């Protein structure tokens, strides 16, 4: 239908090139000679971008105007997408890519990319595996530490350690209560002072010298996790447990006593036996 283009003519830049022009896109070495074409040296065709047409495009036949009028109507999105996909093989960019040499490095880069991606994926999997193993290991360690914390906060253990420093639990009959008169409260507040740490430690050392401690308890004794005093308002703490009274209170221990007031200030008294009452 379409007359063959001369050998030196460049292919038209139509988006939808006529099917017969496919022969013009064949490689130079495989190009067929057309009957009637001039003999003699033919310039070697090189691959590269399609040049602009040398001649004006012929006016399209009248019968092709009809479909153009048809396409002039507003197309739906899906129709436009289908049209785009159908025209993609004839896209000039693709044409230029295929005809040119650029696809070789592009393909090479893509292949290298695929290999690199696979390697990275393997690395990622390996690191994920290591992370999962690490998670398991850390969870195990966490469980172990939980158990150690629970064991360390055992009141029996704390009481045992406290007894080495001379503390004892007061018996139920040794706790006495005083009336919380206003004067008593004032005296109690006046009696609250910052504990003398130096004096306490000196007394502790003296106590330890009298009854030598085993060497296996260098770390400070952790407080019981349930806290001393529970729900009480005023708290009087001794070795492991708690003695709580809601009135003004008196706590007596054998050698040491620590009284914490409702305001949080505390007084400490070491040996001799003391009564931290107002």
């Amino acid at each position, binding site marked *: 239908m379409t007359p063959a283009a001369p050998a030196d003519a460049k292919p038209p830049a139509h988006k939808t090139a006529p099917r017969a022009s496919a022969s013009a896109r064949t490689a130079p070495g495989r190009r067929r000679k057309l009957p009637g074409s001039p003999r003699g040296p033919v310039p070697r065709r090189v691959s590269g971008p399609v040049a602009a047409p040398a001649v004006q495009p012929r006016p399209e036949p009248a019968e092709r105007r009809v479909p153009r009028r048809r396409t002039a109507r507003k197309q739906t999105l899906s129709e436009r997408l289908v049209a785009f996909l159908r025209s993609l093989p004839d896209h000039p960019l693709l044409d230029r890519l295929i005809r040119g040499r650029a696809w070789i490095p592009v393909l090479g880069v893509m292949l290298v990319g695929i290999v690199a991606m696979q390697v990275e994926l393997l690395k990622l*999997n390996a690191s*994920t595996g290591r992370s999962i193993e690490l998670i398991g290991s850390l969870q195990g360690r966490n469980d172990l530490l939980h158990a150690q914390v629970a064991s360390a906060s055992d009141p029996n253990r704390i009481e045992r350690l406290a007894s080495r420093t001379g503390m004892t639990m007061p*018996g139920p009959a040794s706790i006495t209560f005083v009336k919380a008169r206003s004067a008593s409260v004032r005296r109690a507040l006046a009696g609250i002072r910052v504990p003398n740490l130096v004096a306490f430690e000196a007394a502790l050392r003296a106590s330890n010298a009298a009854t030598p401690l085993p060497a296996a308890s260098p770390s400070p004794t952790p407080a019981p996790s349930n806290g001393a005093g529970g729900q009480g308002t005023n708290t009087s703490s001794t070795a492991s447990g708690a*003695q709580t009274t809601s009135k003004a209170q008196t706590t007596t221990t054998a050698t040491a006593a620590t009284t914490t007031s409702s305001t949080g200030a505390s007084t400490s008294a070491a040996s001799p036996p003391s009564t931290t009452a107002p």
Partner: protein
Amino acid sequence: MTALAPIDRRLRVLLVVFLGLLAFGVLRATELGTVKAASLRRAAASEQVSIRTVPAPRGTIVDRNGVELALSESADDVVVDPYLIRHPQTVADRLAPLLQAPVPKLMSELTKPHTGFVYLAHQLVAQRAQAIMNLRINGLSLVPDVKRVYPRGTMAGQVIGTVGWGDKGLSGLEYLYNRALRGTNGLRKTVDDAIGQPISIDDLRPTRAGQSIRLTLDSALQNEVERVLAGVAAQYHPKGATAIVMNPNTSQILALANWPRLNPNNLGSASQQAFDDLGVGLDYEPGSTFKAITIGAALEDHLITPATKFNIPPVLNYAGRQIHDAEAHGFEKLTVAQILKYSSNIGAVEIGSKLGPRRFDAWVRRFGFGTRTGVDLPGEEQGIVRHWWQYSGSSMANLPFGQGESVTPMQMLAAYAAIANGGVLRTPQIVESVGGKRLREAQGHRILSPGVARQLRVMLRGVFADGGTASGAAIPGYDMAGKTGTANIAVNGHYSNSEYIASFVGMVPVNHPRLLALVVVDQPHGGIFGGSVAAPAFQQMIGWAAPYFGVSPR
């Protein structure tokens, strides 16, 4: 043309060689892919793909303050394939110190014939297991497992219970809540590379950890109660003892201790008796602590008032039986309050006779005796309570003061909780929440009017007063009420004169009790009375607990 001929020839040779190699490759690939496919797939799977069970950590059990009483930690079973052990003696020598096992025993395991799987150690701590793997002994491998740990040792051992092989609860709450605690093991597919590093991990079945259980127990109080009970045991060498402390307003159990103790970490050294939770499993004749039930029933039925006086003879002849009081006395008149204070058996029988068998039986059951309380503890007994039509002629001569019927400590505590809280009988609660969801508190039902409950509490206050059966157990500053109990144990159909059960139940403060405690000592030696054996233990427990829970003194 001629110049190209050698090139063409070389190319053809090259092509033939290439095609030959290609054909060989195709044939080899076909052989590997078809003939040897199955065996190679198996080999690859065994070498590189492994499907392992990921054990689900068992849920923790914590007290009301979050103190962990039972938890799980990662452990490993050490297994060996004897076929792969080339030098058993060397391997045994290297493993012995790490496994803490004798070399001859290891040798026998490493050389066990006709098997490719032998356990060398169970539930080894992860660090030690890793140290064993660092020896890089071919044929040795680890099977991940979970180890149950009880960091507080004997604390509430019978209540928490034990776990056996396969993460299966055997007793206590571990048994009762096994389904919630154990979770679901996961399945994990791992693909290793040539050097054993995992390159692909796929969880075929996700691991679901067990749910945690929060108890109503307070570990500090529990510790104190157990300490006191151990002191009682050291002094009186009883067959067994139990103590329960409860908040009567919510029926939440704050402490439940048993003696002998049970250490779930070391079951091998425990006696069979140590597994019994006496708090719910001991059927005992309550003795005088039951008098409050008889009197409560008569008060509620308006048959008596606290001031009603009864003639108390030295001996009461009732249906051919002679009833005595614990202490000899002459003829006297006692009010109902005094009958409780001095724990008069004769007075209780006289009040019981006012009720009559039918009404008495109805009241016994109304207080919850004869049926399980429904507390969340396995192995609960229901007691032995006969129906009124099963009574003999002399039954009402001993039932009103707590002989002839068996109850459990939990039943007795629940009944006294009703007296303490104003008359509502509730199911005791020991599990506060499962998996973070709070269990519904038992609503209970009213069995006594608030007025009668208060009258009973006021009368029970007299037990701590001068002349009362537990006057020595009073705590200075606190307003307390309670009742002693001393009951003979029936042996071969007769009451023993040497074996007793001493008990005490009491509450503090009287007006609005916040703490209720029961102590039962089974067959003490060197003392038999509830007032001398059990009441001092109650005093020590409440003496510690009252300030701890912020109970105001008078």
